[in-house]
């Protein structure tokens, strides 16, 4: 059986890639994709801990299902926001969307 640490390392790598994407990409859609990667890393963690922790109950899978549902809703809202922003400002470049300040 593959040791737990492999899964965790994979999940951590995925999370870091996602984080990098969120922090470094300029395109808002790419940032959303980064967020999805981070969520996937979380799901991977959850499933791995479930499998190695308490495989008799289906809590890990239930969590994973919830996270997918939330992620889908989040993407829907996020994409809608981006569409609205694009319509008003004609760009999806995050550097130019800087109104979130005093």
């Amino acid at each position: 059986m593959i040791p737990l640490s492999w899964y965790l390392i994979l999940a951590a790598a995925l999370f870091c890639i996602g984080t990098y994407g969120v922090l470094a990409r300029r395109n808002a859609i790419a940032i959303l994709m980064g967020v999805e990667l981070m969520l996937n890393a979380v799901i991977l963690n959850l499933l791995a801990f479930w499998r190695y922790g308490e495989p008799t109950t289906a809590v890990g899978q239930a969590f994973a299902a919830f996270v997918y549902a939330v992620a889908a809703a989040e993407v829907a809202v996020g994409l809608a926001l981006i569409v609205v922003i694009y319509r008003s400002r004609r760009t999806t470049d995050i550097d130019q969307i800087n109104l979130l300040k005093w």
Partner: protein
Amino acid sequence: MDLRQLLELLTVLIPLPPFLAFAFIVLFFNRWKRLSHSIAIGAMALSFLMAQFVFWTVVGWGGEALYEHPVAVSIPWLPSADVALEMGVFVDPLTAVTLFFVSITCLAIFIYSVGYMHGDPRYSRFFAYISLFATGMLGLTVSDNLLMLFIFWEIMGLCSYLLIGFWFEKPSAYRAAIKAFLTTRIGDVIMLIGIAYLYTQTGTLSFDAILRNEEVLHELAITPSVIPTLSVAAAVGLLIFAGTVGKSAQFPLHVWLPDAMEGPTPVSAMIHAATMVSAGVYLVVRMFPLLAVGLEHAAGTPPMVAMAVIGTFSAVFAATIAVAQNDIKRVLAYSTISQLAYMVAALGIGAYIAAAFHLVTHAFFKALLFLGSGSVIIGAHHEQDMMKMGGLAKRMPVTFWTFLIGGLALSGFPIITAGFWSKDEILAHAWAHNPTVFWALAAGALLTAFYTMRQICLTFLGEPRSHHAEHAHETPWVMTGPLVMLALFALFFGFVGVPEDFPVIGEVGKALFHGNWFHHFVGATLGEAPEALPFNPIPVSISVGAALLGLLVGWLVYGRQPLAEGQTDPLVRWLGPVHTVLRNKYYIDEFYGLVIIRPTFWLAKAAYEWIDRGLIDGILHGLARLGELWGILNRWVHRYIIDGGMVDGSAKLVGAIGREFRQALQTGQVQHYLISVLFFLCTFALLYLLYLGVTP
């Protein structure tokens, strides 16, 4: 409701109508003169009817029955800790008789005032004040304890002050008001101390619990007081008697009463002759069981000795002054002092019933005399100097005849006047108990008869000695009506108290009133009427002789050959310097001025100049100055150090830091924010792992 409950209710209600009249006049009807006097007289008439109903009902029961079951009702008032001061009414024979004469004289005087005060600018206010006064007197009469009595006593003192100074435009009037108020205050304060002392000793002030309880009285009589050689009963008695000395104007606190004549004449009649000054005597009559307790062991208790001495002295002293006065009201004022002193002296020798009897008859004839003098004053166009009157008998016949009746009653004219019977009673007791008192009072009676005759002759006989007297006119019926009514009482009231073994008339009294009605009824206030003195012709002859001799001498001096205009009083020639002394009232006012008032003024001035202005104000000003300096310092510190340095400084500092941070951190770009989130997250995670998480 049975009769007793009805009586209790009525007794409680007696003082109420005049009080409501006072309130309504003061609050609402000040502008309507007719309405004001209607309300006042209506209220007084209501009280009169209730008082008379109570009186006649209890008379029907008889004195002993009333003593056994007095009309009494009380409610707790001012509860404090485990005791409550009671407030209530109490009607025993003495109260009943007092209610009788107070309500009659008050009503007569209310009606008379309509005529006397006619046209006065403060007409309504006058009726408001006398209504309040009537409340005070009626309330005092029905009170069942000393505290309530004292409250009503002070209400009357206030009314007396307000009414003496009623014409306050006159400096003499307001000075007299202040003088009366302050002088009676001396007595009242001492009396209040007495009441408080009594309360500390007995824990109650109720008449019922103290005066009708042998044990309490005995206890008080044997307990030594704080003053050596005096029992508590004696000390309290002396203190309370001081209240009487002030209120009833006995020497040495008599000085206020003659000056009180500055007030309107109905006030002089009601307050300063018939009722309020009588309240002083009523108080000592009421407290007599306390004053006399222990009498069986000694010739006289200390309060009684004091009363005998002060009463006898004041009686003669005031009578001598009255001889030399020319103001028609001042003569009456001194005669009031003198007559009240008779009652006090009578109490001093134990003649309880005689004092009460003289109290009632005096109220009637003295009210009559004052109202008569008021009628003269109005008739003679506000002339008060008897030297400027004369010949008014023809011009004012009703006033003359009623005044004559009052004067004869005051002199004790035998048989046909009420004053004779009561004064004779006092003299008979004095003869039996104390010859010194007897001879002094007989001399007083002689002087009384003399100055009364002098007054009547100077006022009514001969020819007018001034323009005003010449054009005098009879007063309207509202004034003469009360005069006639009071004259009837001054003539006939004496017959209720005729000694049973008095020749001829005693038999008539027996037939009409079953003997000496007054003696039996009022005597029952002490439980059992004391034995009446056996008839003794000697004091009666002497008192009749004194009265007739005084009247005769007065007639010879002033009546046979009336004074002409501008002629001086023959007494001035005969008495010389003595007359001057009498005329100036023994210089007592001047003496008080020199010994008490002047030093008080100096003391007050010194206190004002040195202590108040110099010391206290100095300290205060110093403190204020200190505070001001402190304030200036504070202001400086505040403005430059706190405001300028600390508050503004720190604000500026925070502002500057904030600006820097804002520009550095708040870019508005989500990614920058996320970086800081990540940074702090990692930092805290690291810390957690290092210090908490790793250690198992």
